[in-house]
């Protein structure tokens, strides 16, 4: 069972999913539940001997479409709601030891089509108000399965961070004759160029002016496009190329497979219009502040919500540009 409880102080929903305590935790490769099921072998989540890209309903979901109504009635201070939504796992490849950074541009391009398809399908579900596509990579992030995969949460509410970003974009839109905040930010980063990391015809990758993590990177559409599903074929191909450069750049930064959280920001699917407000972009949040030290979300960040960052965004971008240039030397 999944249950939502309203926090009247922070004014946000908190999800309780105690059934997830039993989820598979760092199994040896021979017992990976995300690998294909080999003939005569142990059955896995994937009942085939091989696959390209596969998506399945999470066995240990935070949200389910069948979550029961709360047994307890609401009180003025205690509000409940069923954890109705959906959780999917996206398998990037059937090769256990790969990473997204190791996918070729063609596979990343295909994956973008799959993500777009899932955004459309899950967004059409009545209980899903926000489709959240993400990847947690690396044990430092808390990943429990090493097989290359991402996840999708179909939230029954607009999550707090997305809601706050949309409010900011709405305020900017209203104050600037209908202009898009994120379009302005991308144009500013392209003009300034000090924080640019990679650039394509349709996407720009940069360390944001006010990054919250030392090596945070945003990949933002240069056109005001609300979701991954609204990208044209040319834009999807460009996104695949830019994604590949950023991913490889992260690995090249310190010569190791860098952990990260990869998050897609896009329009809610609650039926409202987000034209000129929601702007598709991908944010990467690696936990490292050096090759061997992690940035913890400790007292100030967790307790006060005030981020203190150890690396200036301009320095991080310079390092990442150099790493990408070394990995992709001119032909």
């Amino acid at each position: 069972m999944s249950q939502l409880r309203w926090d009247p102080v922070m004014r946000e929903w908190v999800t309780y999913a105690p059934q997830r305590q039993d989820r598979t935790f760092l199994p040896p490769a021979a017992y990976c539940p995300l690998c294909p099921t080999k003939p005569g072998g142990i059955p896995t989540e994937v009942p085939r001997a091989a696959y390209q890209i596969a998506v399945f309903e999470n066995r240990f979901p935070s949200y389910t479409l069948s979550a029961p109504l709360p047994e307890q009635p609401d009180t003025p201070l205690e509000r409940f709601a069923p954890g109705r939504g959906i959780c999917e796992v996206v398998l990037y490849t059937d090769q256990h030891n790969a990473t997204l950074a190791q996918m070729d541009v063609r596979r990343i391009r295909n994956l973008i089509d799959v993500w777009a398809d899932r955004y459309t399908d899950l967004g059409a579900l009545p209980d899903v108000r926000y489709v959240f596509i993400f990847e947690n990579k690396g044990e430092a992030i808390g990943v429990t399965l090493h097989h290359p995969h991402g996840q999708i949460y179909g939230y029954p509410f607009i999550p707090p961070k997305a809601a706050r970003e949309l409010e900011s974009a709405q305020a900017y839109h209203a104050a600037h004759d209908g202009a898009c905040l994120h379009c302005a930010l991308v144009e500013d980063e392209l003009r300034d160029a000090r924080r640019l990391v990679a650039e394509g015809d349709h996407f720009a990758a940069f360390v944001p002016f006010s990054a919250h993590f030392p090596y945070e990177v945003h990949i933002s559409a240069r056109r005001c496009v609300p979701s991954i599903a609204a990208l044209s074929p040319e834009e999807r191909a460009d996104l695949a190329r830019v994604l590949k450069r950023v991913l490889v750049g992260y690995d090249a930064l310190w010569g190791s497979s860098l952990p990260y959280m990869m998050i897609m920001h896009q329009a809610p699917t609650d039926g409202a219009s987000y034209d000129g407000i929601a702007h598709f972009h991908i944010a990467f949040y690696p936990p490292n502040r050096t090759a061997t030290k992690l940035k913890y979300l400790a007292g100030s960040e967790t307790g006060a919500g005030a981020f203190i960052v150890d690396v200036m965004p301009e320095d991080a971008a310079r390092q990442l540009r150099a790493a990408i240039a070394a990995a992709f030397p001119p032909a």
Partner: protein
Amino acid sequence: MEKERLAKDDGRYIIFYTFEQPGGVDPTRAATPRTPAAPADQPASTSPTVPLEHETERDR
């Protein structure tokens, strides 16, 4: 893109996506996977066992 949706034994679904040009793994530029850049058991900065260097660097 071909999309095949199947029901699993426990009622959940799985969708297989197949492409004419499947692409694949090209590890030439990316780092060897599963090499944590920091040990998973690295102590938290509030831990009493944290190396002094950790704190002094933070305090600079």
